[in-house]
């Protein structure tokens, strides 16, 4: 299917299914129940899942395949956001030109930064990219204020020029309200709400547009992973010396890879601007670059689905885990005697709410130590356990051993 082998096609279909059903899958708990605060099926968060998924997929093309660790990908994310915002302000409120331009602009910036940074490898490459990203952040926050809005950032305004207001269907600008980013008249914030019993599901246009774009991005990533180009990138990670003596010029391969990766980040940035039309310089800060590194390693660097899972996990923690407060804990532990409730609350409290970073850090450490292949490796281990149990059941003694050996 689509030039993919069976396994990859199945993976793509699974991801497509998950995106399609995300509003239902992420809202497993009925509204009003005690567990309802763990529901993640609201538009803002779902959009963030897929947009950061794109960001991480792109980062993984660089880091997962070639092993070059860039600490400056937030620069492309931010540049994409600014470019997208300017399209929404100047051209039309339609999101298509915004997304296209943000990808192109990020690609051009990645070409310049990559041209210089790729002269070095290893830690020096990481430091160079970090330096460029911090320069971009400083520029955006101060010198380039006319373009970036400085510390206040950029928003869509009522008096934006928008030279083609009706371009590609434009958007609504009724009664002096600030128009909302839209796709051929469909506003990104528009949702269809479905109430079924005590469940409430929100199907949001913005999420489905981002989800569709993520699926395309995921498909392109699979193609790159399975192409001769991807094979050469893996060879760069494995043995650059041999690659040079094999008649391959590593420089254009690395530069192309860096630019593709930057364009993914730009696409994600453009989508962020399209979903929520405001952008500030903090989007370029080094913490944002670090976050995508965490996502990729958590999920499994070099795997296809890993970065998407990692992005989901981190965004879930950031938005859901951080909302648990002391009162919630007291309700949960209320079944115990008072002194025990107090004790448990005291122990657990530092790990929740604003302390969610602490929990994330512990999880990150556990994964790096016990599952260096990330969540994907964890999944594979579980799957192989399950297989062994199924196979081993019923057959006993040496026969079972024999059958199981090749699988290990």
């Amino acid at each position: 299917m689509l030039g993919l082998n069976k396994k990859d096609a199945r993976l793509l279909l699974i991801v497509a299914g998950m995106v399609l059903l995300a509003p239902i899958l992420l809202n497993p708990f009925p509204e009003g129940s005690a567990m309802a605060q763990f529901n993640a099926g609201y538009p803002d968060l779902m959009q963030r899942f897929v947009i950061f998924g794109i960001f991480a997929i792109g980062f993984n093309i660089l880091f997962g395949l070639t092993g070059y660790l860039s600490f400056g990908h937030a620069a492309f994310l931010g540049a994409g956001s600014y470019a997208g915002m300017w399209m929404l302000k100047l051209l039309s409120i339609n999101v298509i030109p915004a997304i296209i331009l943000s990808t192109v602009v990020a690609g051009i910036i990645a070409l310049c930064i990559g041209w210089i940074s790729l002269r070095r490898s290893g830690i020096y490459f990481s430091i160079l990219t970090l330096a460029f990203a911090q320069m971009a952040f400083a520029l955006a926050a101060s010198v380039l204020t006319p373009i970036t809005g400085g510390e206040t950032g950029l928003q869509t305004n009522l008096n934006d020029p928008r030279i083609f207001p009706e371009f590609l269907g434009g958007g609504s600008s009724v009664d002096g309200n600030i128009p909302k980013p839209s796709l051929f008249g469909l506003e990104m914030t528009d949702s269809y709400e479905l109430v079924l019993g005590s469940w409430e599901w929100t199907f949001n246009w913005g999420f489905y547009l981002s989800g569709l774009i993520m699926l395309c991005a995921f498909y392109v990533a699979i193609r790159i992973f399975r192409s001769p180009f991807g094979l050469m990138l893996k060879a760069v990670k494995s043995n650059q010396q041999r690659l040079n003596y094999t008649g391959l010029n590593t420089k254009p391969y690395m530069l192309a890879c860096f630019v593709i990766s930057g364009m993914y980040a730009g696409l994600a940035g453009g989508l962020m601007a399209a979903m929520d039309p405001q952008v500030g310089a903090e989007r370029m800060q080094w913490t944002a670059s670090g976050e995508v590194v965490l996502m990729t390693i958590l999920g499994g660097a070099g795997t296809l689905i890993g970065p998407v899972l990692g992005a989901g996990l981190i965004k879930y923690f950031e938005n859901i885990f951080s909302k648990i407060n002391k009162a919630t804990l007291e309700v949960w532990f209320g079944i115990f005697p008072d002194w025990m409730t107090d004790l448990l609350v005291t122990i657990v409290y530092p790990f929740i709410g604003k302390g969610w970073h602490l929990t994330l850090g512990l999880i990150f450490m556990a994964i790096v130590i016990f599952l260096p292949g990330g969540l994907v490796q964890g999944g594979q281990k579980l799957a192989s356990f399950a297989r062994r149990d199924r196979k081993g059941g019923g057959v006993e003694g040496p026969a079972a051993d024999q059958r199981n050996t090749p699988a290990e």
Partner: protein
Amino acid sequence: MGILEVQNVNKSFGGLKALQNVNLSVEEGTIHAIIGPNGAGKSTLLNCFVGKLVPDTGSVVFNGESLLGIKPYQINQAGVSRVFQTPEIFADLTVFENVMIPCFAKRDGSFEMNGWRSVSKDAEIHDRAEQMLTDVNMIDKRDMTASSLSRGDKRRLEMAMCLSQSPKLLLLDEPTAGMARADTESTIELLKEIQERLKITMAIIEHDMGVVFSLAQKISVLAQGTVIAEDLPDAIRSNPKVKEAYLGTAAED
């Protein structure tokens, strides 16, 4: 006029003169061995052929083209492949992928933006890689990770990778260094067979006299950075200067 002509090559590192007026001519279709005691400048000379070092003066001409000042990948594209002292392979990749990479490099050149094609659907490359692995008797190991191979198999794999590009000149830097006797013999057989079948020109740097005399059709002897003799194996064996510089001490072992 040989396929590789080295003329008046000098190279010094600081005060140390590693190569002094080295002249060498490798005839097409032969196995040419370069021998010499430790520190004679063998590896320096080889590095001048592959673009890793640039000689201070002199010329290195391969097939009518100068090899000086061009990058390793360009030298490979011109038809020179290199086998390293310790096998340099893509350790994280499978044996089959290892062989496919040089096949791609041979067919598509030093860079091609082929991110949309599929490796697994490229029948031409697959056939070629399978053929090469069959030639070195490794087809049953095609799906193994290269890092898990034995030393001898890594060497075979590296040979298959180099040969898959049908090079005009194959440079071998101590191909049997650190190998068990059986592996050394099988490597000699492999090289002989390749030379008979494909008529590839080879330049071998070697320590092991047994290997040199069972393979080489011509031998150059380097000592202290200069070529002290270049002749047929039998003549080298009886050359008094060579005996003094090299074989004399080796014979006493």
